[in-house]
């Protein structure tokens, strides 16, 4: 009886051991966190929830890396000072623009680059921003007009405790102009963010944007590697191709940039609602990026490829998106050139 029992136990142990040994074959295919979209990654809902009273009280305590990054971005760009207003994170990821929702003053960080370093992508889809920063491209002054999380002496009931709080923590009187520092120091956070959530497209976009800001070939190559990783995990993201196109163009690799813009435009058209109507799923920035991809696909084809092909694709894209002044002007130019 005992021998039978031990034999049975031995067989069970062997079975369990084999199951365990083979288990990674199943485990490696388990990916419950692998999905596209979701409220935690959505810019609009992220903005709304992080501006709520509950979120302000919780400070940096968040369960999602995406939200943590949202807070870190604000703190780093404001030298650690916590404000109640939030940056327009969507704009930051889309075109490297810091938009302060508090007073609707925004600063296009691309403008901080010398003229010859700015690329066409930003020229094409970024204009008319009021900016008032100093010449220094690392730090500039900015007037917020929004409250800080730590209140001013006038609004604070805590007396000495409040005074100590203001002295120990990074704090500035919100009525006075304050510092905006560069976001390059945020890069490690974006690296961590995309490592822990490779489907966070914004993380790749903003990280690549800041890398481009270094204006050095080594970092531009790093940005391309970074975006390649993003594309591997998110092959349908037209924004990543658009950003990679921008960086490739900065490296004067025109032929590849042209192909990337084309790919981006094709993907964008597949995702874009037929009328391009702005909705929760198709934001203003989605539309802007899609149009930029289309325009740049035509523009680079015209400049570095074949004008006839450029004209063909311009007409095809225009037919799909119905109307676009810049594209129509390009078509007119190409027709007149042809004649």
């Amino acid at each position, binding site marked *: 009886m005992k021998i039978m029992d031990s034999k049975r136990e031995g067989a069970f*142990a062997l079975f*369990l*051991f084999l*199951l*365990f040994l083979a*288990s*990674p074959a*199943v*485990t*490696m*295919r*388990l*990916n*419950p*966190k692998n*999905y596209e*979209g*979701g*409220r*935690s*990654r959505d810019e609009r*809902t992220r903005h*709304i*929830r992080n501006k*709520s*009273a*509950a*979120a302000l*009280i*919780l400070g940096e305590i968040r*369960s*999602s890396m995406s939200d943590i990054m949202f807070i870190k971005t604000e703190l780093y760009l404001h030298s650690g000072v916590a404000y109640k207003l939030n940056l327009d994170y969507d704009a930051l990821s889309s075109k490297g623009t810091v938009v302060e929702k508090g007073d609707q003053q925004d600063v296009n960080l691309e403008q901080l680059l010398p003229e010859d370093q700015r690329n066409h992508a930003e020229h094409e889809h970024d204009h008319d921003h009021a900016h008032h920063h100093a010449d220094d491209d690392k730090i500039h002054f900015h007037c917020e007009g929004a409250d800080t999380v730590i209140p001013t002496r006038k609004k604070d009931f805590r007396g000495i405790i409040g005074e100590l709080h203001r002295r120990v923590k990074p704090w500035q009187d919100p009525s006075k102009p304050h510092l905006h520092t560069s976001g390059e120091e945020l890069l490690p956070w974006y690296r*961590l963010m995309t*490592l*822990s*959530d*490779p489907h966070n497209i914004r993380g790749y976009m903003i990280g690549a944007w800041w890398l481009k800001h270094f204006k050095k070939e080594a970092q531009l190559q790093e940005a391309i590697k970074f975006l390649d*990783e993003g594309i591997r995990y998110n092959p349908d993201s037209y924004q990543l191709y658009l950003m990679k196109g921008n960086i490739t163009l900065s490296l004067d690799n025109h032929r590849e940039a042209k192909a990337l813009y084309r790919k981006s435009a094709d993907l964008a058209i597949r995702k874009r609602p037929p009328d391009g109507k702005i909705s929760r799923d198709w934001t203003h920035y989605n539309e802007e990026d899609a149009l930029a991809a289309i325009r740049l696909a035509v523009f680079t084809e015209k400049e570095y490829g074949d004008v006839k092909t450029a004209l063909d694709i311009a007409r095809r894209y225009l037919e799909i998106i119905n109307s676009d002044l810049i594209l129509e002007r390009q078509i007119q130019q190409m027709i007149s050139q042809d004649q």
Partner: protein
Amino acid sequence: MNAQAGSNDLRWVRLHFIIGKGVFLEILRRKDLYVLIILSLLYVLGILVIHLVGIENPETANFLQNLGMSLAWFFAHILMLLNSSRQIPDDLENHTIYPLLAKPLKRSHYILGKWEAVSLSGVLSLFIFLFFGWLLAPGQMGNSSLLLVQTLILYILSLALFSALGLFLSLLLPRSVNAIVLGLLVFLGGNIFDIVKIRAQNARCGALWNWIICYIPDFSLFNLTTRYTDGIGPLSSMQFAGLLSYGFIMTAVVLYLAVKVFERRRL
């Protein structure tokens, strides 16, 4: 023969009941409920604050729901960590294990009884926290009910594996070191594994690394809270079945190892 088997089963159940009762009495006697009460009070404070400032919109409600559920998962695991890492060392230290083993009780039954009782106490506390979490912010964005059921089942599986691991490691490591290892595994493990996996892809033996990492329990696979509050649909039946098998295999292996180590230990 059948009658004997039946009486054996009954005795087995009774012995498990004795061990389970012992664990629960210990929880009450040691005033471990303090911890449960303290953690629940945190929720109550949160509810009071939210009541004062209000929930401005469904997005905030959703955010708070995510936080409430995440904290329930977190707190239940903390309680299990405290509980599972103490059971066997305390019984050995206080010599309370001897009367139990003097009864016709196999050591494997002792471990299984402990595991069942510790897991059950964890599941009970989980539901208490989830109840408070729901009071904190009832969902307003119409998330998938089927995914909620899947999430809860995986929470329970996570606790079962965690208690098994806690009991097993308590046979090998001092209590505090055990607590640190468990805490690191459950709260940071998922992030560390994700980072290692992505970095391994560019490494030479990347696939081998990824395979080896899979032998370490990844508790983040059982936490679908963010997927649920993100408004994503339920897991496919294949994915869900895969997660269940992963949890069952891991738990069985860890329990088996615990029994084997305990059987070889001199008392």
